[in-house]
Structure formats: structure tokens, C-alpha cells
């Protein structure tokens, strides 16, 4: 069977150890990244989808830039069928484990205490909405993880309902935000997994651990779906420090 591949776009070098592929839309980039992981050529180091693009990182001692560009263009154009089930001993089988295991997108329900906010007043002022309306809109939308980056495990979630769009960044970033802080800017919302400097307006905080780097715990992947649910202070304290349950809220 010949699957319809992600529509081919521009494929360009990102230095001499990676290439970038551009797609017409975000789902095409997610499908392409999954196809690369499933194909798992022995030179593959990583594939990094972000919005409608995907970066393919390779071992430059094992393969040349030109060969990878043509491989990527071929796969992006749907001209190559990824293997259905790589055997466990093969390079593909090796790559199919852990962080790289291709898996269908999951849906997560993430509790947020909107009382633990720092910038709700600013968001209300910009949008002309009450805090309750902001919360209703923020929890009333199912988001997609379009990219993971900026900091380990930080999910870029899109897109906000139009009424919540267009809020800028802070004039100067905070030097440290609490882990679990939920922020928004532009068309995006996101969760700061670790204490970091951060420039988004913060409207709440989740009590759950969404990243544990030393343990390799990164439940949220590009392509996953996220819904926020409102909780109160008591519930926040009850859940504080628990891990985000993988596959919850299916």
C-alpha cells in the first residue's frame, strides 16, 4: 500500500550535519517526523519537528549532506515507504526505542490553578475580557503541541482562540518563573517545565511535573493534544509534585 506522504516542500541545509524541510502545514511536518523515525536510517541522530518544518540531524561521518537532502526530499514527497515494523536488532529497531519511538499522538488533560497567576490583569486589559472569560476561553480549547524547545520539554501549544490572541511579551523577561507556570503570547500558550528566565504573561500554574530531565521523563511530544482544566488552590496543593499521567484524559 502506498500512503500519501507529506507534501514535498523546500529542503535546505542547516549547516553540514542537518537539513531543514518545510511543509505546507503543521500536520504534514508531524507526519514526516514520524516517517523519518519509522524509517530510522543508520545515520539518523534526531528529527526535530517545529510547526510546519522538521530538522533532520545526521552523523556526518557516516553520510553526506547531499545524500541526506535527497533522502529527505524523497521521503517528504511520499516517494518512499517507511518499513512497517523494524526488526529489534536492526538500526531501525534500536532507534525505535525510548524518546524516538514512533507513537500515535496522545491527548493530555492538564490541571491549572488560575489563581496562581502573575499577569492576569495585563491579559484582561489587553483582551478587554474578564478573568473568568479568559479562563473559560483558555480551558475551552484543545491545543496541539507544535514544537518542543526553548528549554527542555517546553511545549509550544497552538493556537489560542482569537479573543486571546495578540498579547505581547513582558517588556523585560522575569529572571525566574516557577515550574508549571502557564503563559501565553501571540497565538501561543505554553507551560514552563523548569525554573527559567521567561518573558510570557503568566495566567496560572499547573501542580504537575511535566518534565523530569534526569529521569528522561518527557511526556509531551510534538503532535500531542492538550486541554487545560481549572482547579482551585486545595486541588493544586493535593496534586503538587505528581507527574503528568501519560495518556490521561483520552
Amino acid at each position, binding site marked *: 500500500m502506498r500512503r500519501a506522504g507529506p507534501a514535498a516542500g523546500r529542503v*535546505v*541545509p*542547516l*549547516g*553540514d*550535519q*542537518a537539513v*531543514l524541510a518545510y511543509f505546507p502545514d503543521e500536520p504534514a511536518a508531524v507526519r514526516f*517526523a514520524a516517517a523519518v523515525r519509522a524509517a530510522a536510517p543508520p545515520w539518523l*541522530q*534526531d*528529527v*526535530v*519537528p*517545529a*510547526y*510546519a*518544518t*522538521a*530538522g533532520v*540531524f545526521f552523523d*556526518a*561521518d557516516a553520510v*553526506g*549532506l*547531499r545524500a541526506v537532502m535527497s533522502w529527505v526530499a524523497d521521503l517528504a514527497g511520499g516517494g518512499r515507504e517507511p518499513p512497517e515494523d523494524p526488526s529489534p536488532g536492526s538500526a531501525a529497531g534500536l532507534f525505535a526505542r525510548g*524518546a*524516538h519511538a514512533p507513537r500515535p499522538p496522545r491527548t493530555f488533560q492538564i490541571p491549572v490553578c488560575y489563581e496562581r497567576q502573575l499577569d492576569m490583569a495585563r491579559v484582561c486589559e489587553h483582551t478587554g475580557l474578564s478573568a473568568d472569560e479568559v479562563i473559560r476561553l483558555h480551558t475551552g480549547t484543545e491545543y496541539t503541541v507544535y*514544537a*518542543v*524547545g*526553548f*528549554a*527542555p*520539554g*517546553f511545549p*509550544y501549544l497552538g493556537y489560542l482562540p482569537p479573543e486571546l490572541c495578540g498579547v505581547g511579551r513582558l517588556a523585560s523577561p522575569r529572571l525566574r518563573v516557577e515550574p508549571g507556570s502557564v503563559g501565553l503570547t501571540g497565538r501561543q500558550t505554553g507551560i514552563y517545565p523548569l525554573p527559567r528566565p521567561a518573558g510570557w504573561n503568566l495566567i496560572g500554574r499547573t501542580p504537575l511535573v511535566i518534565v523530569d*530531565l*534526569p529521569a*528522561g521523563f*518527557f511526556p509531551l*511530544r*510534538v503532535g500531542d493534544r492538550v486541554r487545560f482544566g481549572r482547579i482551585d488552590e486545595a486541588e493544586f496543593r493535593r496534586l503538587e509534585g505528581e507527574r503528568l499521567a501519560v495518556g490521561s484524559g483520552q
Partner: protein
Amino acid sequence: MSLTLLHPGLLSLLVDAGRPRWRALGVPVGGAADRAALALGNALVGNPPDAPAVEFTLSGPTFEAQHPTACVMFGAPFSLTINRNPIAAGRTFTLQAGDVLQIGGPAVGVRGYLCVAGGFEAPEILGSRSGLDPLKAGDVLTCPASWCEPRGLPFVRSPEPNPPTPFPEREGGAGPESSTPLFSGEAPGEGFHFLRVLDGPQRDWFGTDRFFTQEYEVSPASNRMGLRLKGEPIARRPGELVSEAVAPGAVQITNDGLPVVLGVDGQTIGGYPKVAHVIRADLDLLGQFRPGERVRFVRVSQEEAETAARKRAATLRTWLARLRAADRQPVVG
């Protein structure tokens, strides 16, 4: 019990070859900023190229040994003393219990590596033993007891350590690749460095060649995340870029029109347009620029990039093989 860190200097980190397979989750590659220096230092004490070592920047750490330990300091040639007696960088030595090793500053370059026979022990996190946080005073670094006779590699002051490939008169000549265990940080004369680059994905956002024709100055705000450069701002077409994958070596032009070259701890995705990308043969050099040094970018073809990478890898392999074959290997345990 092995080495106690009495003072961490400016920034001391446990490093190996980093985490190249976790970018999709937003984890920077990390590891040694100057991979060749780490590999050569490790080879001098009989280790595999990516055994964990301590990297330090500009102002080095001070250690006290708890048991005999065969060591070498490699990378930028830092001054160093044992119990206040100066010893040579780039030569192996054995610390005895109670010895205090004090690492000062480098005459050229910024980063050095303390490698010990057998490597430092550290927990493996996501496939790497590179530390997630800087080392601090009082930390104890564990390694096996070991002994060695002194042996070394010279720090090179080659007249042409890093000739850019587009200069045809230098092609095929006796470049540094053929003979010397290159130290990445030497300036090739005339007071500035070359960095060879390929076009970046957004090269066409910049309607000017000013990026390639001007000399930039390294800003003191540079670190392992990025090399910040000062110079004449370059103009670009308006518009915002949606964040996309980036990598060490990417030359981003920030909103002030100035370049930031991403380093080993650089973020994994970014929304600044990339005018160019430093080729892998020159990535180690990024880790050795001193604030105030001057840099020029030289555009090369993909073929030239591949040739440069092959030559550099071949030189490194040759030296690693020579050190493996040589006598006076350290004795571990």
C-alpha cells in the same frame, strides 16, 4: 574519593560528547565546547575520546587530590601549578594525595580540559555523563587511582593554523591538518580568525553581503550558548520567522541586526533568521574565542565543507592513533 574541587574558577563543568539524540525534546547537545581538545586530552591519559573531563573557561579551578591521579590539562594552554610549582600544559603528570592543582588562565583561547586516567565517574543522564549544572566548591569528583610518566603534545603556533579553503594558494599546502595536533584557538595572523560557513536557511532575507565583508568583534557576553558578535548591523527584510530547528554553528541575526553564533548549549529551536552556518570543521573554534578577538566569515561550498571536515577528522585520528600506540601509557587502578 579522588579530586576535591576547592574553587570552581569562572565556570567548571563535567563534559563528554553531550546528548545529540534529544534535541526533539528541547535538550541542547551540550558536552565539550572544543571536542578535539577533549579527545586529545583524553588520549594523552589513555582514555577513549569522550571520557568525562572537567571543562573550564578563562579562569580555571583548583583541586586537591585524595589519591595518586594521572592527569593532563589540554585545550587552551592554561597556566597551572602543583603546590605552587609551575608545570606545563599539554603534558601528563601524576598528582599525589594532598597535592593542590591550581589552574590559572590561558594565554590564548578560553577553554581547557582536565582529563584523568580512567575518566571521572558521573551518572549517565539521557546517554551522557555531562553535568546539568556547573561544579561548585566542595564537590568531590570520583576517578580511579592512577599513575603515569610524563608525555605530551606541543601546543602549536603554526603560521597558518586555520587557512580558509577558498584561498587557492594555500590549497594542498602543508596545512596544520598534516602535521600538528592543532589547538583550535590560535589566530591565523593578521589578528583575526576565519570561520567558514555555508549559507543559512534564510540567507535570502538579507539583501546585502555586508555579513561576509565585515570584521566582527567577539562580545564579552559570549558563552556556551552562543558567541555574540559586535559590528555594523545588517538589514533584513521585514517579517517574523516561525521557530524552527537550529543547531550549534547556526548564525542567527537578532533584531538588532547583529549575529549570535549558537554554541554547544544553544537552544534547539529558534525564531531568528539564520544568514549562515559554521561548518563542522570549525565548530571547535567557536568554543575558543576570547572577548575582543575579531572574526570574519568566509563562505564555502558544500564540497569544501566536506573536505575540511575529512581533513580535520583525519588529523585528529592520526594523533589519537599515535597516542594509543605510544609507550608510557598511564597505569590505572
